[in-house]
C-alpha cells in the first residue's frame, strides 16, 4: 500500500534525523481482531494493534477501557483461560502463537513491567531478577532427581543482576532485600528483571510512572528510550498524556474495549487524545444557576478554634463559616491540615474546638453524632475507611444509613434487632447504580473488584443515601481517571443544585476546586489564611498557599 510505505518512510526519516536506530519494517507483535468477554460482558472488541522493533507504542485509555485485559491476553494470564479464552489472533515475528501461560509468554520474549510490583519483598534484588530463571549447578542429587534439584549458583546470578542494573545505570547493591527499597528503585528492579531475559523482544510497561515522583518518572522514560534504541519494542500503557507525547512513536487510544484511534505521535495533540479517550469534550462548562445565592446571612456550619490531631495533617485553631447551599472548596499544600478539617469534624481523628450547625453544638470525636447532625463524609482514604471492600455494592451504599438512621429496615420494637429490608435496599442500590453510572456487573458485585472511579462513586452514593444537609468530600478524584473525575465533579454539582446540599470539598487539585466551587478557602499551617473566588488569579492562589497573603482576605 502506498500509504503504508509513505508512513514507514516518514517514520524512518524522522528517526534518522533524531539519530535513533531505525525501526525495522516487520512487526514484532501483531494483534488481530482480539475480542474478549467476561461473563457475557464484552470488554474487548475487535482490537488490532501492531508494534515494530524499537518502537515505543503508547496505549492510552481510561480505567476499564480494556487495557489490562489486553495485557492479560498478551501475557497468557490464567484469568483469561479460566473465563473462556478469547477470540482473535496474536502474532509474534509474523507467526501466529498461542500464549497459554505467563511462562510461555516469557519463552516467546514478552516481558512485562507491572503496575503493582511483581516483586517478592523477602527476596534480594538478585533473587527477584532471576526469579524462576535461576542459574544452577548440577549436583549428585540432581543427576538422579532431575534439573529441579540443581543448586543455585549465586555468584553467577549476582553477576547477571549487576549487569542488568548497570544497563539502567542504577547503583544499588544487588544483594539488598527488596522489602526496604524506595518505590522508584523497585520499578527499576522490575525492568532489570525483564531486560535480563536474553531473548526479550517486547516489553510491556503497565502504568509505570503512576507511583513515581516527577524526577523518577523522567529517569524511567530515559531508560525506556535507551531500551527502544537497542531494538526492543515497547508497549507503554499510561494515563499521563504528556509522557505519551514525550516518548512514544505511535499512539493507540482505547475506549470501552474498542480502538477509537491510532496515530503517529506527530499527528497527535494532548487535547485531541484526551477527548478521544473520554469520548466527550473536556471543557469548563458553565455551572447551572441556583434559585438563591448563598450568603453570610444563612450559615450552614460554623467552626471555631478547631484543632485536629491527624498525623501529617494537623489543624491548629481553625475558624471557618460555611454558607448554606454553597460549594466551599478547601485547598492548600499537603501537610498544612486541609485534610484534617473534615476528618476532625466527622470524628475520625481526635479533635477539639466548637462546631455549630443550625444553632446546635455538634459534639466532636463522635462519628455517629456527626452523622445524626445531618452531615456525611466521603473520605480521602477510600479503601481503608470509605469502603468495606469485601462487601457488595448495595451493602456499601446503604450500610451507614442503616446504622445511623435506621433506614432500609423492617419495623421492629428494638432498633438493633430490626431486619434488613432486602427489597428496598436492592431498588435503592439499582437506582444509585443507574443515577451515578456505576460500572459493575450488578448490585451484588464486591466493591474490591471495581475500578477506582467506580469505587469512589459507591462512596458518594453512600453519602448521598444519608441525605445530608452538609456533605464533606475529601480528595474526591484522587487516583481515578480523567473521565471519572469529571463525572464525580458533575455529581457534586448536581447534588448541590437539585438537592440543595451544602458541599465542602477538600482537594489537592486546585483546578478542580476552581471548576465547581463558589469560594475556596486556603489552609496554611493549620489555619485558614484566606478565602478566594474561583476566578482569582494564579498569583493570588500561589501566594496564599505559600502563606504570603498580606492580610486575611474574604470574598463576599
Amino acid at each position, binding site marked *: 500500500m502506498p500509504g503504508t510505505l509513505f508512513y514507514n518512510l516518514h517514520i524512518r526519516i524522522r528517526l534518522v534525523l533524531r539519530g535513533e536506530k531505525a525501526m525495522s519494517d516487520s512487526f514484532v507483535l501483531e494483534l488481530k481482531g482480539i475480542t474478549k468477554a467476561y461473563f457475557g460482558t464484552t470488554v474487548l472488541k475487535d482490537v488490532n494493534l501492531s508494534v515494530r522493533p524499537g518502537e515505543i507504542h503508547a496505549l492510552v485509555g481510561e480505567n476499564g477501557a480494556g487495557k489490562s485485559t489486553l495485557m492479560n491476553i498478551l501475557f497468557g494470564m490464567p484469568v483469561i483461560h479460566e473465563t473462556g479464552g478469547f477470540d482473535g489472533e496474536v502474532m509474534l515475528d509474523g507467526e501466529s502463537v498461542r500464549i497459554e501461560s505467563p511462562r510461555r509468554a516469557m519463552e516467546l520474549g514478552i516481558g512485562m513491567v507491572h503496575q503493582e510490583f511483581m516483586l517478592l519483598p523477602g527476596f534480594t534484588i538478585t533473587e527477584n531478577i532471576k526469579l524462576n530463571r535461576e542459574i544452577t549447578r548440577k549436583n549428585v542429587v540432581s543427576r538422579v532427581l532431575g534439573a*529441579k534439584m540443581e543448586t543455585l549458583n549465586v555468584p553467577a546470578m549476582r553477576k547477571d543482576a549487576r549487569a542488568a542494573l548497570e544497563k539502567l545505570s542504577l547503583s544499588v547493591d544487588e544483594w539488598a532485600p527488596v522489602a526496604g527499597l524506595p518505590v522508584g528503585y523497585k520499578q527499576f528492579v522490575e525492568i532489570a528483571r525483564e531486560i535480563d531475559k536474553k531473548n526479550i523482544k517486547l516489553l510491556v510497561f503497565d502504568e509505570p510512572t503512576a507511583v513515581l515522583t516527577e524526577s523518577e518518572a523522567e529517569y524511567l522514560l530515559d531508560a525506556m528510550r535507551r531500551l527502544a534504541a537497542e531494538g526492543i519494542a515497547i508497549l507503554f500503557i499510561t494515563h499521563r498524556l504528556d509522557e505519551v507525547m514525550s516518548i512514544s512513536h505511535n499512539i493507540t487510544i482505547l475506549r470501552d474495549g474498542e480502538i477509537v484511534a491510532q496515530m503517529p505521535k506527530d499527528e497527535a495533540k494532548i487535547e485531541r487524545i484526551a477527548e478521544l479517550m473520554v469520548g466527550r469534550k473536556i471543557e469548563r462548562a458553565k455551572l447551572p444557576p441556583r434559585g438563591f445565592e448563598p450568603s453570610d446571612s444563612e450559615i450552614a456550619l460554623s467552626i471555631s478554634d478547631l484543632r485536629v490531631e491527624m498525623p501529617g495533617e494537623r489543624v491548629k485553631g481553625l475558624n471557618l463559616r460555611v454558607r448554606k447551599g454553597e460549594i466551599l472548596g478547601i485547598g492548600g499544600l499537603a501537610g498544612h491540615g486541609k485534610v484534617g478539617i473534615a476528618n476532625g469534624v466527622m470524628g475520625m481523628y481526635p479533635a477539639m474546638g466548637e462546631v455549630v450547625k443550625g444553632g446546635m453544638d455538634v459534639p466532636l470525636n463522635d462519628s455517629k453524632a456527626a452523622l445524626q447532625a445531618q452531615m456525611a463524609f466521603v473520605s480521602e482514604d477510600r479503601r481503608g475507611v470509605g469502603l468495606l471492600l469485601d462487601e457488595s455494592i448495595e451493602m456499601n451504599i446503604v450500610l451507614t444509613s442503616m446504622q445511623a438512621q435506621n433506614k432500609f429496615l423492617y419495623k421492629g420494637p428494638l432498633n438493633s434487632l430490626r431486619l434488613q429490608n432486602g427489597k428496598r435496599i436492592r431498588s435503592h442500590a439499582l437506582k444509585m447504580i443507574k443515577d451515578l453510572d456505576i460500572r459493575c456487573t450488578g448490585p451484588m458485585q464486591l466493591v474490591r473488584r471495581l475500578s477506582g472511579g467506580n469505587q469512589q462513586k459507591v462512596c458518594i452514593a453512600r453519602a448521598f443515601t444519608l441525605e445530608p444537609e452538609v456533605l464533606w468530600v475529601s480528595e474526591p478524584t484522587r487516583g481515578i481517571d480523567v473521565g471519572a473525575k469529571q463525572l464525580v465533579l458533575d455529581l457534586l454539582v448536581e447534588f448541590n443544585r437539585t438537592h440543595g446540599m451544602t458541599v465542602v470539598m477538600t482537594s489537592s487539585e486546585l483546578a478542580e476546586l476552581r471548576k465547581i466551587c463558589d469560594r475556596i478557602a486556603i489552609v496554611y499551617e493549620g489555619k485558614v489564611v484566606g478565602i478566594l473566588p474561583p476566578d482569582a488569579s494564579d498569583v493570588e492562589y500561589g501566594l496564599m498557599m505559600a502563606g504570603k497573603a498580606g492580610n486575611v482576605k474574604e470574598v463576599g
Partner: protein
Amino acid sequence: MPEKVPAQSANTPNAQTQAHAHAHVNTKKIGAVLGKNSVPIFFLLLSIGGIIAAGLDINYLINELLGRLGRNSFLVLSLLIPIIAGLGLNFGIVVGAMAGQAALIITTHYGWTGLGGFGLAALISVPIAMVLGWLTALVLNKAKGREMVTGMILGFFANGVYQLVFLVLLGWVIPMKNPAIMLPSGIGLKNTIDLFDISYALDRGLDFIWDGFIMTEVGSIPIGPWRIPILTLVVTALLAWAISFLIRTRLGQQMRAVGQDMHIAEVAGINVNRTRTVALVISTVLAAWGQLIFLQNIGTMNTYNSHEQVGTFAIAALLVGGATTRKATIWNAIVGVLLFHTLFIVSPLAGQKLLGIPQVGEYFRVFLAYGVIAVALALHAWQAKVKSNKELRGE
C-alpha cells in the same frame, strides 16, 4: 556428597544475610533478637522454673530428652517444607502418620523384624504417603489461604476412612487372618498392637558398634545413665541437612517464591499448584517416616489413636521453638522439641510437688499443646492484619 557443598553454603541467602546482620550488632539489635525470640525465651524460663519446682534430677531429664529428641524431631522437621511453600502449619501430617501405621501393620502381619523390617515399613509407607499427600494437595490447592483449618479437618476425615479400613473392611473385605493383631471376631484390628518386632529397631540400630550408653563421673559429678538413640539422631541430622539442601536448589527457590506470593510466582512462570503439591507430598512422606520412628521408640501402637495428636503435638513443639505459620527453621524445630518436651516431662512432676495433684500437670500438658497453637495462630492473624492495614495506608 561433592566437596563443593561448603563453598555453596557460604553463598546461600541465609548465610549472607546473617553475616550482614552480624556486622551491625548493637544494643538495639540485641533487643530486636530478644523480641524475635520471645516465645522460646518465655518457654525456657517456664521450663527452668518447672525444673526447680519439681526438683528434677538433671541426668534423668537429659536422658528423657535425648530419647524424645530422637522420637519426635523427625515429625517436627516434616512440617518445615509446607511452611516454606506458604501452606502454613501442615495439620495434614496426620494423614502421613496413618500411612506410616498402615505400612507398619503390613510388616507386623508378615512378621518382618529388626532394622530390616523397619526399613521395609519405611519403603512400603512411601507410595501410600505419596498418594495421600497428593490427595491432600488436591484439596488444599482448592482452599488457598485456608490450608491450616482445611488440613486439620482433612485429618479428621482421614481418621474416619482409616477406621473404616482397619476396623471394618479388614478381615471382611480385605482377606487377612492374624489372631495376634486382630480382634477375636476376625474383623478389624485390635486396639493395641505390640510392635515388639521393630521395637528400638532404629534407636539401637548401631548397637553392634556402640550402644550409645553413657554412665560415668566427671570429677565427683555423676554423668548418666544416658542412652543416645544414635542411628535415629543420625537419620534426623541427615533429614535436616537434606532440607537445607533442598532450600538451596531451584525447587527450593520456587517453594520460597510461592510461599511469599502465589500470584507473583505464577506470573514468573512457576507452576504454583505443582510446587505446593510437591511440598505436601514430601511433607506427607516425611511424616510417615516420622511416625515410624516415633512408634519404634514407643514399642506399641494404639491402632486408632496413635496418629491422632501427631499433628497437634508436632506443631505445638515447632511453635514453642519460635516458628510462625510463615517462617520456620531447623533450629526452631530442634529448640522447640527440647523445650516442649522438657515441659512435658516436668509439668506432672511440678504439679505433684507443688499441689500434690499430678493431674494438674496432665492438664497443663494439654493446655500447653493447644494453648501454644491458639496463641501463635492468633498472633499471626493479628500481625497479618496490622500488615494489611499498613499496606492500605500505603506505607
